[in-house]
């Protein structure tokens, strides 16, 4: 039996190597295959003669903007209520917890259907950036609520009590004492949520219409995003453009991830000192 388990150890190490190789292969493939296909025309062209991802770039920024403007205040405020006003326990907290967990588990394509039904059809907006942005906002809400809750809970109780002892009101304590102390975690969570908006595509097929060749005129016009462009290029016979766009998207997402860690650390340091 001993020998069996010793052998199993080597199986584990082989599995570790397989995982690393598989995951690194994906990144390496995207970078190596796409790098030389990047061109100025593709990046900044106006999509008349050759495909360009400029509309997708603008579209992605619009989606991030809309989703963040809606989801960040609501998510943070919601976490503040759960932690600061109910002490993070009780029936109400439980219900909200179940609701956010359920929201987090809904597949993105179902969010897409919902966005289509309510914004595109019921509200009569048609395929539009706004419809996509709001749907994405609802999708990232659970992540923001959950991580903000955790950051708020990690703020020491003594800080709050100190503020109350000095006669500070509750709202002022929250905004001047608690939120700044928790800022590192909250900002990290927001950047990671933005990463999800940038990566998402299934929701957008059903809500923003995949119009790849025009910069959206307003938030009510249909449009596209970087992730959606990759799908469009790959399935409509532009393999080179798909590979190049994948590089842009991958670099974008990786930078966001690194930024999240870096800013989080920076804020933590400036709040607590070294």
């Amino acid at each position, binding site marked *: 039996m*001993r020998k069996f*388990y*010793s052998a*199993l150890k080597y199986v*584990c*190490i082989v*599995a*570790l190597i397989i*995982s*690393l190789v*598989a*995951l690194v292969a*994906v*990144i390496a*493939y995207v970078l190596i295959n796409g790098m030389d296909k990047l061109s100025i025309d593709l990046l900044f062209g106006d999509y008349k003669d050759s495909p360009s991802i400029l509309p997708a770039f603008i579209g992605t920024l619009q989606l991030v903007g809309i989703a963040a403007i809606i989801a960040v205040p609501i*998510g943070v*405020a*919601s976490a503040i*209520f*759960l932690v*600061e006003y109910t002490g993070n326990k009780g029936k*109400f907290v439980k219900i*909200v917890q179940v609701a*956010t967990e*359920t929201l987090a*588990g*809904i*597949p993105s*394509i*179902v969010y*897409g*259907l*919902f966005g*289509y*039904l*309510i914004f595109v059809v019921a509200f009569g907006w048609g395929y539009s950036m706004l419809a996509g942005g709001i749907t994405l906002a*609802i999708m990232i*809400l*659970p992540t923001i609520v959950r991580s903000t809750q955790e950051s708020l809970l990690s703020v020491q109780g003594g800080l709050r009590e100190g503020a109350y002892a000095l006669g500070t*009101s509750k709202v002022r304590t929250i905004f001047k004492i608690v939120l700044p102390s928790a800022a590192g975690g909250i900002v990290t969570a927001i950047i*990671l949520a933005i*990463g999800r908006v940038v*990566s*998402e*595509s299934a929701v957008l*097929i*059903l809500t923003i219409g*995949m119009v790849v060749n025009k910069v959206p005129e307003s938030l009510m016009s249909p449009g596209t995003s970087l*992730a959606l462009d*990759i*799908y469009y290029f*790959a*399935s409509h016979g532009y393999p080179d453009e798909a*590979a190049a766009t*994948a590089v842009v*998207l*991958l670099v974008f*997402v*990786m930078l966001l*991830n690194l930024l999240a860690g870096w800013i989080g650390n920076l804020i933590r340091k400036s709040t607590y000192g070294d």
Partner: protein
Amino acid sequence: MRNLYGFINAREKVMRGVFLFSAIFSILALATITIFLLVSGVPFIAKTGFAKFLFGSDWAPLADTPSYGIFPMIVASLYVTALSVIIGIGIGLLTAIALYKFCPKKLVAPIRQMINLLAGIPSVIFGLFGMTIIVPFIRDYISPTGVGYGILSASLVLGIMILPTIVSVSLDSLNSVSNTYYEGALALGATKEQATFKIMLPAAKSGILAGVVLAIGRAIGETMAVIMVIGGSPEMPESLFQSVRTMTANIAMGALELNGDALSALIATGVVLFVFTLILNVSFSLLKKDNSDKVADKIAGKITGKERRGAKK
């Protein structure tokens, strides 16, 4: 002075209201999603006939006499999910164990960071990778039918995609088991490997199971990575190398072209998918409640029991 206090009091009340409303927002959103989906999907299912919709094997929304049976897609979804989770767990769990005890300590943190970074790769990029590398490879070297698209390709892509989730959840639950069990096992004469596989792994079981459910949820709900490698013919899956269609692919592929009844059929497909994920969610929270301490205590009981029996001899 009274004015100032009045202002502060009013501000306190208003802000409390704002926070409360935000907290309710999640509940409202969930309720709206559920109601909208059910109202637009269930009447169609009722009209077509519950059994005919779920267990009908013909999907021909554009035919003269359209028929809407999604059974092939349910089967395809389950096939792809099961296979990808087997691949993902097979490799992911073993990877987590290797990182837990059998890997140089210095390497663990950087490898973990890298795996976390990989969890953030957009699914459409996995889809592209599958479409341009895995599908041609399977077509040329493995597939007996000469078709690269299908269940095997989709499962491989999804298996790689859910790896990071499984590794980090499994490693977290292994790390949360108290190290005294490990040391106790060593003291009783177990080898390091025996202690890891027979004591620590069972003690982390409930956490790992929760991770598995999470991974199943991700796999069954994934759309973009699947749609690019699955082929898309709404046929009953009979082999690993055959173009089929999952529920998610059905919604995404049809959405831009269909309208009227066919569109309602897609929404109804969404309802079925939604119910599947709700069931997964419930089992996830049930598994989480069964905290790992209990399991660990049981194992601790087993160890002390053995010890006592040994003492009697």
